[in-house]
């Protein structure tokens, strides 16, 4: 029962205006689509489209040689607020988009679309593009996964990280064979150079804390197979689930933080098991030599080359190539959050976000789903709290719990209103506040139902104690009252 509004600006460059427009430019149009989650819940998505022609500056920007340059030039000319999208329609013959590509998605919040095929085809392409850059029915259903009946969810719907106020990231280097390899990794520099920019981009979503450690003599739980053909050791795909457990016990986690932990492990195989490759289901070695586990983290195997001469002195000094490692770890971080680039239509060209790790519209995608998830969580939490209070009539609600509940309700209402108006940033902030308040209210230690006795228990305890005592007291009270009445009657009689 709530609305998600996405403001979209569709800008037609000269020569790209389709002949069959319903109204002359500029005009506004609203398209609504309903995503039904279950029998009672549904979400309406409103795409508020504004169609207009390009301005002179935009035309000049679109004259650039490549799509990337055009995108960079167009950026200062567009509405850069979170959640809004701008799509430039270029003529069919334009050379900005390479052959065979009909949509180019930049790394901010804009895209270039090739015109052609009339208005209806353009509209379909625009709708598809809008969904890619904001949210789809399945991403919203995944965010609301506990309300969707299990049979309708795709099997991987609940594997992305849940929305949380913070995450802890731990990088671990596993060296099972320190006698052969003296491994050095400049993790601090790598974190500052490569990881921090990505986390800065994601700082809107949550707080991140990063730590790292080196573990010696930590072995994988599985013995790899030796493959004669490639003279290397192979880990098959179905043995991977058993790799994580023996290591996990040694990973440790911060005692102070309660945030979910994401572990990224770099494993340098022993001399006797080198080189070690991971095999996928079809038996082919995996190019990244890495795998990840939903909601847990990722593991990458880093092979060290054999020494040139067998008499080389052990231990070999190994300087880890942090760029290669971070490329994989950051890709795994994206996948853990659910930002995958694989399921897109083939005629879409996506700009690489470079060192920032994710494009602006990918950040928007995260914010949309997390905002919806937060609001759903708030409503479930508060409903359940209300049911608890109904059941235990004499529970005591402290003042601060009450004020947290009020704050949660107010923030949730404001979040819903902002989502319907299309202000993603303020909607997300409001939803975060709402979740914080509602969790604080629900998990307040004073609300333990054990502390409040139901009435029947009170009767059961006090009646056997007081009833026997009460019987002689009541009887003597009755006797006193009777005697007093007698005396009064006699007093009146005597008179």
């Amino acid at each position: 029962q709530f609305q998600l509004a996405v403001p979209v600006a569709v800008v037609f460059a000269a020569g790209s205006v389709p002949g069959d427009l319903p109204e002359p430019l500029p005009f506004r149009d609203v398209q609504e689509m309903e995503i039904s989650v279950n029998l009672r819940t549904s979400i309406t998505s409103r795409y508020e489209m504004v169609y207009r022609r390009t301005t002179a500056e935009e035309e000049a920007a679109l004259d650039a040689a490549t799509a990337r340059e055009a995108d960079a030039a167009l950026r200062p000319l567009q509405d850069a607020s979170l959640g809004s999208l701008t799509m430039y329609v270029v003529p069919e013959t334009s050379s900005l988009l390479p052959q065979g590509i009909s949509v180019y998605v930049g790394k901010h919040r804009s895209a270039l679309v090739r015109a052609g095929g009339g208005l209806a085809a353009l509209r379909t392409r625009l709708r598809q593009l809008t969904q890619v850059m904001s949210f789809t029915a399945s991403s919203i259903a995944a965010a609301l996964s506990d309300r969707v009946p299990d049979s309708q969810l795709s099997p991987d719907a609940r594997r992305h990280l849940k929305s949380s106020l913070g995450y802890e990231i731990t990088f671990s280097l596993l060296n099972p064979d320190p006698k052969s390899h003296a491994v050095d990794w400049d993790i601090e520099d790598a974190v500052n150079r490569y990881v921090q920019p990505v986390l800065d981009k994601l700082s809107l979503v949550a707080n991140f804390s990063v730590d790292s450690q080196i573990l010696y003599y930590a072995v994988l739980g599985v013995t790899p197979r030796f493959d004669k053909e490639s003279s290397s050791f192979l880990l098959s795909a179905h043995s991977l689930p058993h790799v994580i457990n023996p290591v996990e016990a040694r990973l440790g986690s911060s005692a102070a933080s309660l945030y979910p932990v994401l572990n990224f492990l770099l494993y340098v195989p022993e001399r006797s098991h080198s080189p070690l490759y991971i095999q996928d289901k079809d038996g082919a070695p995996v190019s990244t030599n890495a795998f990840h586990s939903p909601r847990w983290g990722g593991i990458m195997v880093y092979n060290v080359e054999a020494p040139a001469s067998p008499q080389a002195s052990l231990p070999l000094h190994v300087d880890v190539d942090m760029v290669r490692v971070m490329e994989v770890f950051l890709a795994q971080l994206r996948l853990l959050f659910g930002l995958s680039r694989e399921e897109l239509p083939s005629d879409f060209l996506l700009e690489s976000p470079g060192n920032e790790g994710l494009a602006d519209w990918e950040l928007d995608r995260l914010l949309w789903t997390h905002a919806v998830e937060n609001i759903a969580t708030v409503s479930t939490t508060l409903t359940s709290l209300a049911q608890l209070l109904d059941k235990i009539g004499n529970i005591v609600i402290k003042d601060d719990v009450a004020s947290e509940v009020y704050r949660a309700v107010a923030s949730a209402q404001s979040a819903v209103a902002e989502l319907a108006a299309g202000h993603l940033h303020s909607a997300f902030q409001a939803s975060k506040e709402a979740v914080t308040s509602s969790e604080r209210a629900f998990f307040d230690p004073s609300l333990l139902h054990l502390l409040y006795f139901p009435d029947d228990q009170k009767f059961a305890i006090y009646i056997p104690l007081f009833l026997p005592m009460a019987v002689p007291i009541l009887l003597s009270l009755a006797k006193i009252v009777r005697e007093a009445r007698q005396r009064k009657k006699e007093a009146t009689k005597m008179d």
Partner: protein
Amino acid sequence: FQDQAEQFFRSGHTNNWAVLVCTSRFWFNYRHVANTLSVYRSVKRLGIPDSHIVLMLADDMACNPRNPKPATVFSHKNMELNVYGDDVEVDYRSYEVTVENFLRVLTGRIPPSTPRSKRLLSDDRSNILIYMTGHGGNGFLKFQDSEEITNVELADAFEQMWQKRRYNELLFIIDTCQGASMYERFYSPNIMALASSQVGEDSLSHQPDLGIGVHLMDRYTFYVLEFLEEIHPASQTNMNDLFQVCPKSLCVSTPGHRTDLFQRDPQNVLITDFFGSVRKVEITTETISLDSDLAGFESK
């Protein structure tokens, strides 16, 4: 299509937790501590790390002045197996094992100063194993000789957990006298329960050890442990086999189980879904490209 069918029967969990509670203290309740520690060992062996196990024990056996072999707790006579070992991590010990703390752990309503190891930080994709042992009666379980938890309170606690989606599936095992009464009142979905005896029956202990002087284990847990010793992380044994453990001829009491609240068929539920920790993995096929020259180095 085969893949889809497989996935339908598989559990949708991504992590495992275990809450192991021994509710007795004093030397003559040695067997309850041995029960809990044996389950703890099995669960650790099958992969659940200490950070995901909440162990509540009175922990007064190993260093008890009456223990002829100090610093050990044995589960087999002739002292074959020391379950106390070197790396036991007890989260709630001695007088901290109370009904209130147990309910606080389950529902999450914990004072903010509690350390991470004493919390159950499960989420909606966690499978939780809850094992309780001690002295019980019809509808209640005695905690450390001073208080009780009733089956209604336990059922309410599980409902609070379900409301906040603190578990995906829950397996509840109880080894006490009249244990089946404790799971009678459950009403939250996705709970499977096993008990060592029916209402009106007593659970009996297994083997006294003349060297130590007390009974070392309870029968039901002893046979469950024998069953678990044959499970390894990759085994495909399912719950129906666990239900057959300890028939009346061996156990004297009749073990019971309850699966009506559980959505999947017990035949499709693997033992390792609850006792072990087998994670779902995916091969990483995407990478991003980082430019090492242009990366801005920010000095903090």
